[in-house]
């Protein structure tokens, strides 16, 4: 399964689990995780991600070995099963932004067990790294994503810069290996707390990045925006453009932020839901070739009611209008309980379509016909009478 350069988007309900096979059978990078007990039951169409990882990851010292794991933010739908992952798999390096835990500082109980497990393991590794004053070795590595003032904090003082990245940086190593030419992550977020760019929403603290399994961002990579909404993504585009780093916005695969939430392109303005065409135009403009938008979410309904959580039909429709390759959903496309696979062949990222759509009956024609109405005589008896 991990024997070729590719990206997997796992069907894990409305949540994220993305696997990058950076070097076949050797270097695998996981971004977010959602593994539920339920998924181990074959009755659901969710994939038991840890089972797959355990089975297919390269083995080091007899243990499945994951080179790196990045968390975009510690919500359950991005971190569920992490505790179990640590038990069943060796994780070489953890990526995180301390900011994502800040709002839980006052109420640590608000974090789920898996998030707590992640935070504890991350802090352990930070401590080990500071203590080592450099590479702390296998199983202890951690990459911090944050801002310079983070290193002034007590816990992080002396943290080696080689494992520290700020937005705008490019990371080309994983788990202590220099992967130049094979892996390139451009860090877009989170923004600096309290800065002009800080937009204040918890979801906007998400780690955001462009990942390229190569060295040239201009061919377009995979854009991961976590659970960012319109303001955060708007900022990412504006800031990146302002710094002249547009190449790092180019994408062949866009993971629909926040599980295909309409909050990416619809904003509430004076009580009215307004379409923000500007962000769609930008997303469209930075698409390279026949791009795909991937919704990592449960099956997307044909329409939503007010207040429905993601995924949103309207968001899907807007992505469908801009993605030249197409729009796919982890639970609507691909095989049953199997991940969507995007093979990386040189500069191209190709969707390995497993389900071909050949639909001769047209929903539009059917809609016109239903709207026009039938002229058939009644098919059931109808009674009339004068009694009240």
């Amino acid at each position, binding site marked *: 399964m991990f024997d070729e350069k590719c990206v997997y988007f796992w069907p894990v309900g409305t949540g994220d689990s993305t696997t990058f096979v950076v070097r076949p059978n050797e270097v695998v990078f996981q971004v977010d995780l959602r593994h539920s007990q339920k998924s181990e039951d074959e009755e659901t169409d969710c994939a038991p991600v840890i089972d797959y990882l355990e089975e297919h990851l390269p083995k080091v010292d007899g243990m499945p070995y994951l080179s790196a794991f990045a968390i975009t933010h510690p919500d359950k739908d991005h971190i569920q099963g992490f505790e179990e992952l640590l038990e069943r798999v060796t994780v070489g390096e953890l990526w995180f932004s301390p900011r994502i835990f800040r709002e839980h500082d006052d109420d640590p109980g608000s974090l789920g067990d898996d998030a707590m497990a992640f935070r504890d393991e991350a802090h352990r590794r930070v401590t080990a790294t500071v203590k080592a004053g450099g590479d702390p070795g296998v199983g202890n590595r951690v990459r911090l994503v944050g801002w310079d003032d983070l290193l002034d904090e007590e816990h992080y003082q002396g943290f080696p810069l080689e494992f520290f990245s700020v937005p705008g940086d490019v990371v080309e190593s994983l788990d202590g290996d220099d992967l130049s030419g094979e892996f390139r992550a451009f860090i877009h977020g989170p923004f600096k707390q309290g800065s002009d760019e800080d937009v204040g929403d918890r979801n906007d603290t998400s780690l955001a990045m462009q990942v390229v399994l190569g060295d040239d961002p201009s061919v377009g990579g995979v854009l991961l925006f976590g659970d960012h909404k319109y303001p955060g993504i708007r900022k990412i585009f504006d800031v990146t453009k302002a710094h002249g780093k547009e190449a790092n916005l180019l994408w062949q695969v866009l993971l629909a932020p926040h599980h295909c939430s309409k909050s990416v392109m619809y904003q509430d303005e004076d009580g009215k839901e307004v379409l923000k065409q500007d962000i769609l135009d930008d997303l469209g403009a930075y698409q390279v070739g026949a791009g795909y938008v991937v919704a990592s979410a449960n099956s997307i309904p*044909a329409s939503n009611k007010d207040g429905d959580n993601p995924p949103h039909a*309207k968001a899907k429709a807007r992505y*469908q*209008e*801009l993605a030249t390759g197409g729009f796919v959903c982890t639970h609507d496309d691909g095989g049953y309980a199997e991940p969507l696979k995007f093979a990386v062949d040189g500069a191209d990222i190709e969707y390995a379509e497993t389900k071909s759509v050949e639909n001769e009956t047209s929903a*539009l024609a059917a*809609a*016109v016909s239903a709207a026009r109405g039938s002229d058939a005589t009644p098919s059931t008896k109808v009674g009339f009478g004068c009694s009240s």
Partner: protein
Amino acid sequence: MLELSQGQQLALRQLNDIVANSNGVLEVLEPATESKSKGFIWIRLSLETKNYRTGNGLAFRDRERISLHLHPDFPFKKPDIYFTHTRFIGTPHVQWGNSICLYQSSEMEYDPSDGMFGFFDRVEQWVRAAGKGELDPDDAPLHPPVAYTTSSSRFVVRADTPTGIADNGIWIGRADLRKIRDDRFDLIGWTNLDDWGDADPGHPIAAAILFDKPLATEFPTKVNDLFKLVENEGLSFGLLYSLLKLFSLVGSEEEHAYFVLGAPMRRKAAGEPLRPHLTVWEIGPDTLKTLRAMVRSKGEDEAARDELVKWMVEAEVRWCSVLEDRPEIVIRRDGGTLLASLSGKRVVLLGCGALGSAVAEMVLRSGAAKLRLVDCGIVKPGILARQRYADSDIGSAKVNALQVHLQVIGLECVVTADNGNLANQALSRFDFKEWDLVIDATASASVTHRIEEELKAQNLPIPMLSMSVSAAAECGSLLVKMPQYSWGLHHIARQAKLEAFAKDTGHSLVKAFWPERETVKVFQPEPGCSAPTFIGSAADIDHHAAGLLNLGLSRIESLALDAASLDLVAAPWSRLDDSKRHRLSYTFKGYARHNEQRHCYAVLRSDVAALDMTAELKRITRTRSNKIETGGLIFGEIDDAHRVIWVDSVSGPPPDSTASETQFLCGTAGTKEFNAFKVAASGKSSRFIGIWHTHPISRGRPSQDDLHAMLALLHFQEFPPRQVVMLIVGYAATRREENYYLYRRNEFVLIAQHEEEDGGQQ
């Protein structure tokens, strides 16, 4: 607040119904917005197109945004539909980069009463075909490319493009033009650069470049883009520039120059090879002046060069309106019709009156190659009520006036005029080999008789139609003579009359054309001094002219070569009482021809008469012996004018006849009544004309007894006939032969005097 018209409200209701039933396939993105066009509104939509993408056609995304531009007069004006992007620019049926061309003819294909429902059905069909790449299937005509007209000049393209372009690369030469008006040219020919010669062509010309490969489906609006386009297709800038310079020197200072560009992007019908689509580029006098300055200064004129560069980079292309009339791509609007069978044919029209002047124009418009008009009349004031002449024609010969009118229509038919008198010389004035059809619209008995006489000397090897109307123009009559029917219209009319009286006697149509004498009122437009004619309006006449012409052409298609026919047709508004049958049709072959032996009359004997004789011969053989003579009466007509004897029918022996092996004594019992019946049943066209009898085993020469019988008939009766036909069937028992003898009362005395010496034969 946006005010919506009643129609726009209806559109939104219908649209919302579709959206509500579409399960998200169709989505209205935002409330309707005002358009810059007064009263119009925009509706922005999103349509799921994922399932229409096949890889062979338009590369739809999973969904496409579309906009509807709604006229306030919806549903009577169809909506316009656009993509909100220009990704499909250059695709057939997507014009201006984003306008979706849904209908070939919205007049025919868009149904206001089905409004948005039918419209979106069409959208669905379009998107499906576009997704499959089948908007222009191989087996259908092509949608022509678009060049948006900006010049007021029009070009009518008459001449087919040179053949073999696709095989020989780019064709360069000139288009030969005819200037019709200041703003209209006809393109009448093509001359290859190699065939140009030094001589002044003597007419306006345009440069012409015909590419061997298709160009873009939308032609550039900028000169610069046009240069790029033609360069991409293999025509170097240098060559194009040379042509520009060359043509700048051709015309006069104040005139425009024109460039005809063609590329194989048109197809007339399924499977046909691509033919060039033509566009015409107009270059203004100022640009030409600059070009000339460049030529004269050998490129040294700096100002001119700057001006030219500026023109090339910045100027808009002025495209002329091109109106196609090339046979290679235009399907005639009358294709497959009856009249279309006259295309390329040579037609003689006898009579240019009411029916004739109308028929002439129809024949001309059919695409006939030649039309000969024959009439000796002049245009009189009264005929303007129904004949195709003008006040200015009054006093002129009809043929000349009609010739001018027809020539003004401007079709490629050679119209000639002949004001000879048809009553004096009709068909014999033509060499039949040069013509394909004769139409007689004279309704003239004298012309009919003349034709009949002329056909005795020479057969007419082409079909002939003869049309006329009844006295009140309520009914039309059409006679058709096929090439191998030996006789003329007069004969056809007589045969037709017998058929009509036999089958439909009493029918109003029959009465209309063969009225009882006393019911006929002669109509004279100027009582006392004008020729009688009929009463009828221009509408009546045009109806009959068109209907009878079509009917005649359909008859020609279906009749056997030796047949003739008569059709009597009542106009739909006619007040005839037999409303159930508005058309009577009769088809027949000619009578068998024999020769009368004493006066060289032609004898035309019907098949019915032959059958009647056969029946009688069988009867006598059966009841007595084939050696017994028999006979009976002959009914028909002796036509001294045309020297023809018609034998329509014969009777058996009257009951009081007696017969033996040597003699047949024709009785008289019941014959008077029988004759009266025959006269009435034929509308007085067939009556007693003589007696037939057999010579069972000898030649059919008149015997002494036979001559006595003639003498008795012509001289010894109280009211004897003037002349009598005697038919002797010789060798009746074995090989029948018919011998006809016409005896006249006044000559019989002469015969009697010579009887002794010459056996009755002179």
